[in-house]
């Protein structure tokens, strides 16, 4: 069931879905660097996250993926470089500032309160209030409609406590929360790490649907199957630097593994359109 893109030649199959629009990128990263003491977690990172596309970010443990997510979601600021949001350089000082701009981050476990129900979680921090009193009926209506729009059908009730949901259902709630917040960029940090086969399929489906709706989507994953199923574009981080970036058609699982583990790939076709910077040092005599 996993689509292994082009193990013989380049994938000839059309993209998983008609990639609508694309073109403009709400978020550009330019020359981003971040270090923790002596550890250079990221250096001179350039990355575009185009609207309507799923960009997968790959890299080995400690490559700097989570650090990059945290910069984008306002948890801390870069040492150097600029974050350009819809054409303007921005400073993201808090998670709240990032989410107010339209950047939503879906974390694996930290984003939901187990003791609150689905509606309460989806509206957490932006409750609908009428003269000081929360309008529960209105919130429930909007939450149900959002979940329906996303074709999330596995929840028996929006008044279920989140504690009683499965991992995939929790991801669905977190995604719906991002959608309801009118996010223009949704970042997923290892969205399928703890999920079984069918729940993974459901979450990947959701991710694709967000891109179809015109959002820019970034997915971090260690699972190449998932990445090749859902991503339009790939970026590989190696020791804090972008080792390769481009449309998924330029990659196959074998060269991606090379890029992740060594930062370069001999198997990479040099004339590949859209490929940038990969293995340049290697080519120089």
């Amino acid at each position: 069931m996993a689509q292994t893109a082009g193990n013989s030649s380049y994938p000839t199959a059309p993209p998983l879905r008609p990639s609508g629009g694309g073109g403009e990128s709400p978020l550009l990263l330019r020359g981003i660097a971040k270090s923790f003491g002596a550890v250079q977690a990221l250096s001179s990172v350039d990355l575009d996250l185009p609207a309507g596309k799923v960009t997968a970010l790959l890299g080995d443990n400690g490559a700097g993926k989570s650090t990059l997510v945290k910069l984008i979601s306002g948890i801390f600021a870069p040492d150097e470089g600029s974050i350009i949001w819809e054409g303007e350089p921005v400073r993201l000082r808090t998670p709240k500032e990032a989410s107010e701009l339209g950047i939503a981050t879906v974390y694996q476990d930290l984003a939901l309160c187990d003791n609150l129900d689905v509606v309460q979680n989806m509206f957490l921090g932006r409750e609908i209030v009428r003269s000081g009193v929360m309008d529960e009926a209105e919130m429930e209506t909007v939450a149900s409609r959002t979940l329906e729009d996303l074709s999330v059908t596995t929840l028996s009730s929006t008044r279920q406590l989140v504690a009683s949901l499965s991992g995939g259902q929790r991801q669905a709630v977190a995604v719906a929360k991002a959608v309801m917040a009118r996010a223009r960029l949704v970042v997923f940090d290892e969205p399928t790490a703890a999920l079984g086969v069918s729940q993974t399929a459901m979450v990947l489906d959701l991710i694709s649907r967000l891109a179809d709706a015109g959002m820019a989507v970034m997915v971090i994953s260690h699972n190449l199957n998932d990445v090749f199923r859902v991503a339009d574009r790939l970026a590989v981080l190696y020791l804090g630097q972008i080792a390769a970036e481009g449309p998924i058609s330029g990659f196959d699982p074998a060269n991606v593994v090379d890029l992740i583990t060594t930062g370069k790939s001999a198997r990479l076709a040099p004339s590949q359109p859209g490929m940038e910077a990969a293995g340049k040092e290697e080519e120089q005599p």
Partner: protein
Amino acid sequence: MISAPPGASESEANEVASPVPSSLSGFLRQWARRARSGESGVLPVLGGLILIVVIFQVQSPVFLSPANLTNLLVQGAVFVLLGMAEVFVLLLGEIDLSIGFVAGIGGGVAAILLASPYNLPWWAALGAGLVATAAIGAVQGTLVTRLGLPSFVVTLAGLLGWEGVLITMIDHSPSASGGVVRISNNVVNDLVNGNLSPLAGWIGMILVVSAYALATLGGEQKRRKRGLSALPWSIAMLKVGITALAGVVLVLICNTNRGHFVSLRGVPWVVPIVLAVFAGWTFLLGRTRFGRYVYAIGGNAEAARRAGINLLRVRTIAFTLSGLTAGAGGIIYASRLGSMSVGIDGGTLVLYAVAAAVIGGTSLFGGRGKALHAVLGGLVIATVYNGMGLLGMGAASQYMVTALVLVAAVTVDAFARRSRN
């Protein structure tokens, strides 16, 4: 499916899955399922309360007399108020060990300011007492939230420190004699010892029950109109009916003459006072953003932070409200005794406050609890206290029985939790 269809024709499967089934049989089936899986709500504590009442009534026939039941309500008021103070802090996943002596400060400040040479009017003295305890809550809350000190330690220091402050305050008060400040203001003494007229009791009860009925049935009607799942009418009416019945029984009991030589009847003022605090905190915790954020922080502080909630502010306000409520408890305590003394046992009071909240069903780990839990738990403790007193058993057996009740309550909770996971 996500929400119940607007039509009443639901399949059986939906009734089982949806949290609020729209038929009576579906509701009962679901209730049984929830009780089995540990989400039984306040039923265990209600059952426990009835059991204790039956035991005491069998042992002592005067237990259920109107005079004793009214007395029990008055005794329970302080436990209930302090329990509600504790609920605010427990919901955050913190604990407050100081509220017994904070209550003492509230009562002490009021008593001293009522007496000469200050002779403040009652409202100013009570207001000062409440401001003082709210400020104490704010200071302790600030230490916990801004400096990140453990609440256990900060309020343990409070437990020691505020007793010292109370003793100093009363010792230096010109009106104190032998470590006691008497309260001669009638309004303040009547908070507990005065009664509503029988007619006022009926009118007040009818108003309260009508307001509750309007809110409950109106809310369900609103959900129905929007096509959201709502309680079956039979259940909604049952809730209102039980509340009305409880109100009628309460007023009937209190309006029975319980005096020996002079007629003494009517609902004690303290009952509507406690009810008002209960209604206010229930509304705040259940219907406002602030309340929602208290639960969110107790459930998952990191998630709350990422949702943009100002944790420092919400936590500090919760500690402040806890202090305020403790002050109200202290004033009621002082009103009941007609004085404030350095001998107030704040250490035992705070333990009873925690016990009241936990017996009622509030979790020590944060995120789960209600003002109602303090009311029910406080009544359980008052019942034990009162019943043991009637049976002529002293403090020793009262402590032991309360301990057993507390252990029973957390055991029920632990089992419920285990079957939930």
